[in-house]
């Protein structure tokens, strides 16, 4: 396991009718991620994520919430999976090249 120097900020679009939320990745792999956010999102919901990884921008990465837990501080921790194979491959290439 590798570790970034900071928690990667993420813009989270949960609905086209609402302004996006934000949060940070606590863990990121090509297929799944742990996302921490102060905002409550609909369980089993589809999300669209935008973030920057190693200087490369990733936009509209599709993700599905599999599990949501609220920690004692009041933050929500979401376990996400990335269902799109093309986006997963792009993430894998970027993480493999990560210093």
């Amino acid at each position, binding site marked *: *396991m590798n570790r*970034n120097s*900071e*928690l990667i900020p993420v813009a989270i679009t949960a609905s086209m*009718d609402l302004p996006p939320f934000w949060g940070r990745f606590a863990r*990121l792999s090509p297929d799944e991620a742990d996302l921490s956010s*102060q905002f409550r999102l609909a369980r089993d919901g589809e999300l669209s994520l935008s973030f920057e990884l190693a200087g490369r921008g990733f936009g509209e990465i599709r993700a599905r919430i599999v599990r949501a837990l609220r920690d004692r*501080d009041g933050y929500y921790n979401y376990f996400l999976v990335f269902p799109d194979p093309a986006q997963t491959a792009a993430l894998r290439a970027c993480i493999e090249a*990560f210093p």
Partner: protein
Amino acid sequence: MFNTVQIICASEKNRTLLRGIFKDLGADAVFSFDLNDALAILEKARPAAVFIVDGGDPPAEIQLREIRRAAPFIPMIPLLKRRDSGRAVALMRAGAFDCAQYPWTAEALAPLYKKAMNLSGTAFELDSKALRSKGRTLALLLAGFCAFAGFSGGAYYGYKKYTPPPPAVKNSFALPYSHATGIVIKKGSVLISDWHSQAVYEHNTKDFNILKVTSLPELTPVAMTTGHDSLWLAGTDGVMEKRMLDARYTRVSRAPAMKPAPDGVCFDGLYFWTADSRAGEIIKRLPLEALPVFKTYKYPGGLIGAFTCDTRFLWVADPRYKALVKLSLDDPDTIISRTELPAYASKTMKITALASKNGKLWFAGEDKGLGLAFFKDEPKQ
């Protein structure tokens, strides 16, 4: 001190607001007018976190950079003046721990304040599935053995004793928002208005999954009802809007502002009824364009928490009585019955929206800051 936070804020109005919020959170707030003032007292105050009101001079990015120089590990949280994810992400890249959205409330700032002490980095994995599968193999072998042993014994009892219970009907649902103001029951779905996100959410009746969210940026809904295939929404300004039940809830007309602004509204099929919880009044209105007052009644119960009606009765969720109160449409001065509401057993429960449909009463509100909706059968009395 561990609970000292420093707040950089030039506006006296915002300082007053934030002073109250951080007092509610149990924090010891030290205020600075600007960056220079903040840097001058940073070492002396030794805060656990720094909150910066966005939009000041110099910009928040510079304030983040300079504070980071003086105190590299201190969590810094900009307080945004509107919900702007692009700005939030940019500030987080510039070193902010997280960003608070407007409106600033103790409820919204509590997680940020509490979390501000813990920082670490994003962990990367390439083959998370492969790594987990090793542990899974051993666990599956063990589980398989236990399952076989358990099955042989359990099958005997299972045959003789147990029959599967019928699936329990779920009648309570968590909501991803906590400021419900109105609830309307449609065929196969439930509409709930939320003042904080200025939106109407449509939920599937069965599992309460969100089917649609319609943002109403020009209206802060404080009450909602339905009548004659239309949706009626009351705003904070007392204006009642009639909207179509189409995909965007297109506005059809606006009634002149009612004074005081109602916080409950319903349509009994003939008349409109509005409720004013502060004055404890229930007002019967004629179904004309301006919804003129026909008669005003004093609510005979404790306090109007949520209000609705159907073609037979008026219904009130009364937090003072901790009960559902039933009133007659002809004589709202008299209580027909009051039925204890178990939901009020929670002292923090706030029921803020109520609807009656097909013998069921639907409730929406919040408990401990979390939104929820539930229904129960209409009381027999």
